[in-house]
């Protein structure tokens, strides 16, 4: 793999609290958004925002892992760490989208699924596994965009999609570089080296076939200066890609989706 300089710096910047978060992306790309709550099991997980709105003229289901910007916002959204109920809420909205042949758009931004006693007892692993299986055969187009942090199982639980896009300042990784350094080098100070070795930025992931498109961010990609030009281009890109995906037969759509994931790490 080519060495991409400063992977770890990118990880740190992707965690920056002034970067646009899922709610910013929804506000900038989607009009008339209606938020819909709850997993119909036991709760409404505030780490995940789900609802329906318009992408241009097209009704779409939108799901985002929300981090918030300020400390109160972060606490309210559990720092973007979703619980099993959050993944189930997302799946419930995806099944509704499937019923009405409405595309699904996911904004992924999480350091990882919530790690805690209740999350384990409520089946964090089962909820993520269920989403992976259901998303693979969901009979409507899905695009997932990694907008900041793509942290491991918590991220892929909303990123089984016909197209996986990634902001150029985002990272997507099997493990946090710090944890990786801790386990392999027994020393957090090797996080830099770990980040480099994990190939967690858009360029190597594009090359490995793990993402389908890199969305180039403007310099200083901050919430305060949310860039109309950037989000206009993103909106148009999403719209035209959904149009293209919607024109496929369900069979073709699902076969292509399966094959895309099937290919990663294929052996002859």
């Amino acid at each position, binding site marked *: *793999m080519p060495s991409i300089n400063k992977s770890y710096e990118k990880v740190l910047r992707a965690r920056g609290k002034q970067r646009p978060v899922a709610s910013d992306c929804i506000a900038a790309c989607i009009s008339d958004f209606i938020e819909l709550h709850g997993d119909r099991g036991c709760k409404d997980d505030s780490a995940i925002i789900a609802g329906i709105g318009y992408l241009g003229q097209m009704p779409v289901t939108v799901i985002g892992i929300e981090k918030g910007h300020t400390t109160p916002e972060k606490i309210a959204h559990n720092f973007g760490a979703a619980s099993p109920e959050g993944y189930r809420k997302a799946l419930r909205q995806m099944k509704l989208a499937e019923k009405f042949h409405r595309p699904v758009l996911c904004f992924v931004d999480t350091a*990882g*699924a919530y*790690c*805690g*006693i209740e*999350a*384990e*007892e*409520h*089946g*964090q*692993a*089962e909820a*993520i*596994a*269920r989403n*992976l*299986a*259901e*998303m*693979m*055969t969901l009979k409507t187009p899905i695009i997932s965009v990694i907008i900041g942090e793509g942290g*491991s*199982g918590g991220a*892929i*639980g909303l*990123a*089984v999609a016909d197209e996986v896009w990634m902001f150029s300042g985002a990272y*997507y*990784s*099997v*493990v946090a570089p710090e*944890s*990786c350094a801790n*386990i*392999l080098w027994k020393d957090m100070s090797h996080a830099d*080296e770990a980040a480099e*070795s*994990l*190939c*967690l930025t858009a360029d*190597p*992931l594009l090359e*490995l076939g*793990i993402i389908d498109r890199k969305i180039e961010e403007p310099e200083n990609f901050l919430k305060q200066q949310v860039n109309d030009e950037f989000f206009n281009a993103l909106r148009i890109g999403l719209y035209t890609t959904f149009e293209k995906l919607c024109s496929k037969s369900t069979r073709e759509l699902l076969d292509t989706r*399966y094959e895309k*994931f*099937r290919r*990663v*790490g*294929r*052996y002859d």
Partner: protein
Amino acid sequence: MNLKSLFKQPQNTLEGTESEQNVKVNAKTGDFNCPGCGAPLLRTEVRVNYYSCPKCDYYFRIGGRRRLDFICDKGSFKEFDADMISHDPLTFPNYSEKLDAARQKSGEKEAVICGVGKINGYPCAVFSMDANFMMGSMGAAVGEKITKLFEYATENKLPVLGVTVSGGARMQEGMVSLVQMAKTAGAVKKHSDAGGLYIVLLTNPTTGGVTASFAMLGDIELAEPGALVGFAGPRVIEQTLRQKLPDGFQSAESTLKCGYIDAIVERPHQKNFITALLKMHNGGFCDAVN
């Protein structure tokens, strides 16, 4: 049973690290003390007792191939893709050395053994993971072997039995390993949609990206007594929350109470239990209606 001794060992989330059961064997006699109750044990008495302590039911970790001997009819297992190995897709530091060491230690080429066999006469696709190979972690080869097995089972109308033991995704393969979660889950779903029965036997420990993909997608989820089943490893949760976890947390027994396991089955009864399930499902494949 002393559960605490079981819970000390697995120690990671999605990534697989080595973890060994600490059994000090007397070099002269070949005897050792049970890590569960401390009782002195003889190799032979443990062997005839399905590798568990006759005094306290402590379960010794066993390799993937021994599992197959317990479950498949003698001589019936035919292995698939026995030579498939991971190719170090990221040229990750020291990974190829680790793979070599894992091959030495386990005598296996990868962390899962896949194939078809018979279970009391019932034909079944079977996979069995091996904890001695980098803690049963899932990289591209494990993902590919399991995916191919489900595809084979779908095509040949066979049920699948999977015995899991794993620390999760293999971090040395980076995102290539994480994507194996989606890939295997997709293959399980297609097998299920086609009418195939999938039985999982969770063994100690099953955590991380393996639990969060094919290990939790069984139609029927069985577990060995005391097996640790979870997403995040207990040590990681303790470090995150800065608190001690309750006794028995993530054990098969508490996971059953939480609603994620159908039944806990002791080693000597597993084969007959699985056979009974296969029989009740007419062999384990039912042509889907649509």
